[in-house]
C-alpha cells in the first residue's frame, strides 16, 4: 500500500471508534447468554433460556414470518423494477433521463418519519387498508434508490461494444440482455437485492405508520422495549445482528465474485458496494 502515510494517532482513533461501535453490541450478545435477568457482572452462569423463550414464542414466530415475507417481496420487487429502470436509463439517450433519475433518487432525501406519515395519508386517501401489502409498498419506495444506484453504476461500467456486437449479429434487445448483459452483472444485482432485503428487514421508522394490525420483528422489539427491560430482547437482538451480518457477508462474496469474473482480478470493489451506495445517498 501507499506507505509513509500511516498515522498512529488516526490508528488509535480508529480503534476507539471500532470499540465504541461494537462494545454495546457485544455486551448485548454476552447478556443474551446470561442465566439471570440482570445486566451486571460478575456473570451468574451461562444459559440459552432466553433463546429458547424467543424461539418458542408464537408472537415472535409470526412477526419473523411477516418480516421475511415483506423483506423477500421487497427484495424481489426492487430487483425487477430497479434492474429494468437502471437498464432503461443507462441504455437510453432520451431527454427524460435527467428528471427520471432525480425521481428515482428522491425518496432517499426524505427522512423516514416524513415518508411514513406521507404514505399513511396517501394510503388513507386511496382507500387502501393498512396491511403487509402497504408495508411492502412503503419499503419498495424506501429501498428503491439504494438498489437503483448500485444497479445503475454496475450497468454503466459495462463495455457497450459487447451489447452492440450482439445486436449487430441479430440478437434482439431481450436476448442481448439475457445472454450478454445479465451474465456480467447478476452477482452485483443479487448483492444489491440482499442489501434491499436487509434494509427492509430492519425498517421500523416508516413501517410503524403503515402497518395496521400486523407485526414485524422490529415492531415486536419496539413493543417489548415499551413494556419493560425484558432480557429476551438481548437474544432477539443478537439473532438479528447475526442474520444481517450473514446477509452482508453473502452480499460481499457475491459482489467480489462478480467483480473477479468481470475484471479477472481481486478488487476491493465488493466492500465498496455499500460505501458507494451511501456516498451517492449523501
Amino acid at each position, binding site marked *: 500500500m501507499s506507505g509513509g502515510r500511516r498515522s498512529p494517532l488516526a490508528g488509535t482513533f480508529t480503534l476507539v471508534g471500532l470499540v465504541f461501535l461494537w462494545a454495546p*453490541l457485544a455486551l448485548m450478545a454476552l447478556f443474551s447468554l446470561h442465566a439471570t435477568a440482570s445486566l451486571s457482572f460478575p456473570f451468574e452462569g451461562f444459559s440459552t433460556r432466553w433463546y429458547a423463550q424467543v424461539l418458542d414464542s408464537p408472537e415472535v414466530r409470526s412477526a419473523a414470518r411477516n418480516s421475511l415475507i415483506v423483506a423477500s417481496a421487497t427484495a424481489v420487487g426492487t430487483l425487477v423494477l430497479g434492474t429494468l429502470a437502471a437498464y432503461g436509463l443507462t441504455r437510453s439517450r432520451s431527454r427524460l433521463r435527467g428528471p427520471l433519475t432525480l425521481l428515482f433518487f428522491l425518496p432517499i432525501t426524505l427522512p423516514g*418519519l416524513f415518508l411514513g*406519515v406521507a404514505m399513511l395519508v396517501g394510503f388513507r386517501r386511496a382507500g387502501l387498508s393498512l396491511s403487509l401489502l402497504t408495508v411492502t409498498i412503503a419499503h419498495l419506495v424506501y429501498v428503491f434508490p439504494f438498489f437503483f444506484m448500485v444497479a445503475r453504476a454496475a450497468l454503466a461500467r459495462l463495455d457497450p461494444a459487447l451489447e452492440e456486437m450482439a445486436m449487430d449479429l441479430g440478437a434482439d434487445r431481450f436476448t442481448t440482455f439475457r445472454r450478454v448483459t445479465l451474465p456480467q452483472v447478476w452477482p452485483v444485482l443479487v448483492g444489491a437485492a440482499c442489501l434491499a432485503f436487509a434494509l427492509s428487514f430492519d425498517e421500523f421508522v416508516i413501517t410503524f405508520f403503515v402497518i395496521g394490525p400486523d407485526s414485524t420483528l422490529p415492531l415486536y422489539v419496539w413493543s417489548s422495549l415499551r413494556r419493560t427491560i425484558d432480557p429476551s430482547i438481548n437474544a432477539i437482538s443478537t439473532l438479528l445482528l447475526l442474520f*444481517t451480518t450473514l446477509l452482508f457477508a453473502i452480499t460481499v462474496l457475491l459482489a467480489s465474485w462478480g467483480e473477479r469474473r468481470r475484471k479477472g482480478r481481486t478488487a476491493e470493489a465488493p466492500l465498496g458496494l455499500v460505501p458507494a451506495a451511501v456516498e451517492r445517498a*449523501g
Partner: protein
Amino acid sequence: MTARLRGGPLVLATPAAAGLLLFFVAPLAAFGVYSFLTGALYEVKPPFTLGNYEDVFAGNLNGKLARNSLVVGLLSATVCVAAALPMAYWLRYASGRRRTVALFLIVASFLASYLVRIYAWRSILGENGVINRALEGVGVISEPLGFLLYNRFAVTIALVHIFLSYVVLVLYAALAPLQASYLEVAQDLGAGRLQRWRRVVLPLVAAPALSAFLFVFVLSASDYVTPQFLGGTNGALLGLEVQVSFIGTGDYAYGAAIAFCMLASFVVCYALIALGLRLTRLDKVRFAT
C-alpha cells in the same frame, strides 16, 4: 439500429416511475395539502386555513422541542464527522488485511438494527444498566446515577452510534482519490502537517463531509424513536410531536404542518451549505485519479 437505441429502452423505466409517482409524489402532495386544511379526528375537512401553522408557532412546547432537535442534531452531526475523519484517513492508508477487517466491522455495524442499538444503549445507561451496576459493584456509588439516561446526552450518544459508520464510509469513499504522492509533494514543497491537512485533505473531503453532516443532522433532528426511549421529557425532539399527531391525537393537519416546517428548515440548511461551498469554491474540487 441507432433508431432502436434512442428513447426505446426508457420504456423499461416506466413501471418504477409510475410506482414512485403514485406512491411517493402523490402522497407527499396530499400531505402538503393536508397542512392547509382544517383538522378533525383522524380526518381533514375543506376550509383552507393557515391555522395549523399558527398553532405550530403558538405553543411554548414546540419552541423547546425545536431547540432540543437543533442541539441534538448539531451535536450528533459534529461528533460523527469529527470522529469519522481520522477513521476514514486511517482506512485509506491502512495495509490490506487490516483495512479489510476494519471495513467489514464498520459496514456490518452500519447494518446493525436501529432498534437494537437503542435498546443496547438503554441497557448500558439505565438505572439497572451496565454502568450503574459496575460502579455499584466496585463501590464507587451507592445510589444509581439517574442522570445517565433520559436526557439529550443519552439521545446524542445513541444517534452517534447509529450514524458514525455511515459517515466513515462516506468520507472513506471521498478520500479514495487522495494519492500519498500528493501529500509527499506538499511536504517536499515545505508544507507542515497542519498545512497539508488544510490545503490538501480538507478541500477534498469538504463537500462530502458537509453532505454527511447534513444527512446526520436531518435524520437526528427528525428522529422520533431514540428520544422516545432514551430522551425522557428533557430529551424529547420535534419528530415525537409529529408521531403523536398522527398516531396519538389524530390531528393530521397539525402534524402535517409541523412536518412541513421541519422540512422547510432542512431545505434552508441544505441551501446554506450549498451556498457556503460555492462561495469558498470547494464544491468543484476534483483530483485526478
